[in-house]
């Protein structure tokens, strides 16, 4: 088995999941550091070098809104889902449910379960 191929596939799988996870977490307003902690607590480890540029991209796409506010004597950038983001997240969750149940069916029908669940 080529580990590089596996790594690329895992990255591809993870990329889409991360976006859904970030959008879902930001239904409640948070700043970068607490968002990262919250994702980690849910089992999705993400480093700052990935999270912050992703937040910027999602904001540029209009899915997130942000504002600077002072908290604990420091300025922090708070992110939340925008109205466009809410619509898109709702659609993505429907797609996710549909994909998940379809995949479940395929995996049950066609063979053994994978040895390890994909690490997030």
């Amino acid at each position, binding site marked *: 088995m080529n580990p*590089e191929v596996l790594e690329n596939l895992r990255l591809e799988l993870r990329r889409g999941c991360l976006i859904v996870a970030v959008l879902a977490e930001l239904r409640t307003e948070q700043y970068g*550091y607490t968002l990262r902690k919250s994702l980690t607590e849910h089992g999705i480890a993400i*480093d*700052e070098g990935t999270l*912050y*540029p992703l937040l*910027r991209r999602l904001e540029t796409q209009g899915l997130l809104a942000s504002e600077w506010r002072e908290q604990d004597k420091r*300025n922090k950038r708070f992110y939340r889902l925008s109205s466009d983001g809410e619509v898109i997240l709702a659609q993505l969750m429907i797609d996710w449910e549909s994909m998940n149940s379809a995949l479940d069916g395929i995996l049950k029908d066609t063979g053994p379960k994978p040895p390890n669940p994909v690490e997030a």
Partner: protein
Amino acid sequence: MELVDRYLQAVKLALPKRNQGDIIQELKDSILSQVEEREAALGRPLTEDELVEILRKMGSPARLASRYREQQGLIGPAAMPIYWKVLQAALGIAFLVQVIAAIVTAAAGRPLLMSLAPIFNYPSVAFTVFAWVTLSFAALHFFDGRIQVKDQWDPRHLPPVVKTKRGKSRIESLAALVISAIATVWWLAGLRNPWLIMGPGAAFLTFAPGWLKLYPLWIVMGVAEVARRAFEFARPTATRQRLLFSLVPRCLNLIALFFLVRAGELFVINPNNPALQQAIVAINYGTRLGLTIAAMSTLAKLLYDMWKLMAQRFEQAHQAAVGS
């Protein structure tokens, strides 16, 4: 927290200009939040090694900054920092080659416009360099799948925070580089074609042979000055090296001034037009006086800069001794 500031400074330099301050402020808050949480858990301030560990987890400055860049598809994010460095170096080297070609052409006594041609041709040369570098990296990315770049770095090796006033912008440095290149070519061509420097006055006056005897020195001075400007453009934050680099053209300038002040005549009358026969003594006297004052101020500035460099070295040695 000086290490954090050094890290953020390095990230900032590699970030796209747009939103630079905003991104840095957000990253700083994230790093400080991590530090505070770790310190609260440990019940003591973090050691340098622990701080280094947090920064290493953020990724090298170049790698972190590259993730904020758009359109990385052709090259790939991992190779992007190297691509930018190679591209900048290649464009800089190409410019220096064009400048040297212009200086050599001027030194060979060619007309000014012909001498400047290599500099005017630089945009097309730069485009070719850009195309080759980009194509090479794209090909490597395409055929090799990815370029393996080890993210080996140490925050302790990052340059110190620049606390001085904001230096020249990149545009200003580039303008200074182009102007110095054009001025060098103009001066070298003008010594052989005095009308380029004196204008209509060349009908009455011309340079004495003493100026042309120094011609090889003028060439070296021109190359040194252009190289200094190129260094300023390529390394805007390397203030200490910049000061060191500026000593070379200043020393050469002093040598040239020394020989000129000692030369008998600085200007001679055009034999076909002896209208300034009465004034030539005063012109030579006034010019020599001006050159003497210039030599003294150059010497004073040279000594001051050397003292400043030595003082910096001494201070660094002192800090190292205190830290050890």
